[in-house]
């Protein structure tokens, strides 16, 4: 076992743990927005750590791996939040309103902008949590 393999293995393990916690979060959270919260954050750091770990393990053969992995990490850091934003926004416009504890109306500031009733809208029953 070289030092690269040990450090890389630890990074891959950390990544795997965070990816598992992200999956558990998707299972446990009550609605789509909270699931996205758990999913996005955990998969971003999980995938980053995993890819960095692969780069470190492969550094024994050639240093070029770590540079390529760094580029992939940068692309993940840019694209992951954008996709989660697009999913969340699309879900809101399909009238999947967020889960809110109790009956607090002022907790949903986006409703006044996006939640207007549109007669031409034929999307299914509103307020359903999925």
């Amino acid at each position, binding site marked *: 076992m070289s030092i690269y393999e040990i450090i890389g293995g630890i990074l891959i393990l950390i990544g795997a743990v*965070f990816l598992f*916690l*992200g999956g*558990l*979060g998707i299972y*446990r*959270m*009550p*609605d789509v*927005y*909270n699931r*996205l*919260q*758990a999913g*996005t*954050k*955990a998969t*971003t*750091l999980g995938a980053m750590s995993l890819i960095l770990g692969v780069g470190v393990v492969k550094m024994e053969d050639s*240093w*070029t791996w770590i*540079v*390529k992995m*760094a*580029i992939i990490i940068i692309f993940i*850091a*840019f694209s*992951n*939040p*954008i996709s*989660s*934003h697009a999913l*969340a*926004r699309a879900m*809101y416009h399909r009238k999947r309103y*967020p*889960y*809110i*504890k109790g009956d*607090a109306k*002022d*907790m*949903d*500031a*986006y*409703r006044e*902008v*996006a939640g207007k009733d549109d007669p031409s809208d034929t999307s299914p029953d509103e307020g359903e949590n999925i």
Partner: protein
Amino acid sequence: MKSLTFNEKLARFFINWLFLMIVWIAFTTSFNKQEVIAGVFVTMLISFFSIPLFTCCTFKILAPKRIFYMVYYLLIFIRELIKSNLDVARRVLTPSLPINPGIVKFKSKLPTDYSKMVLANSITLTPGTLSIDIIDDTFYIHWIDVKTTDPEEAYTEIAETFEKILLKIFV
């Protein structure tokens, strides 16, 4: 879409060229003469055709002060990313699921679309927040544990640390 002046086009062309060239060298990871020459021509062609598409920034972005703040921003961002993952882990592993979700809004002072995009992405990756929409200057944020519904206080809680640095980079 407003038409661009010649200077803006030139700035976009050279900045795109520079970034694409960095990506090319990082991917090929060799300073072999043939590969570098091929890269220069390919990236020049791409950045010429993508002048109307990419709206990153002007030449001001290459000032040393701004690059220093970019590195500082990156360090703060990594710290917040790790904090947010530990936060998610704590919430997921607690049996009672301690969440109090809701959507809050706040107004941002950032001038350009690109800087707003960077702020929204950073907010998504920081503890307990997910940006849902940006309409003009107003950000709509899903917050997993709402502490306040007041826009000003929400701004202080969520965005202030990032926006102070972004204003130094992009303004």
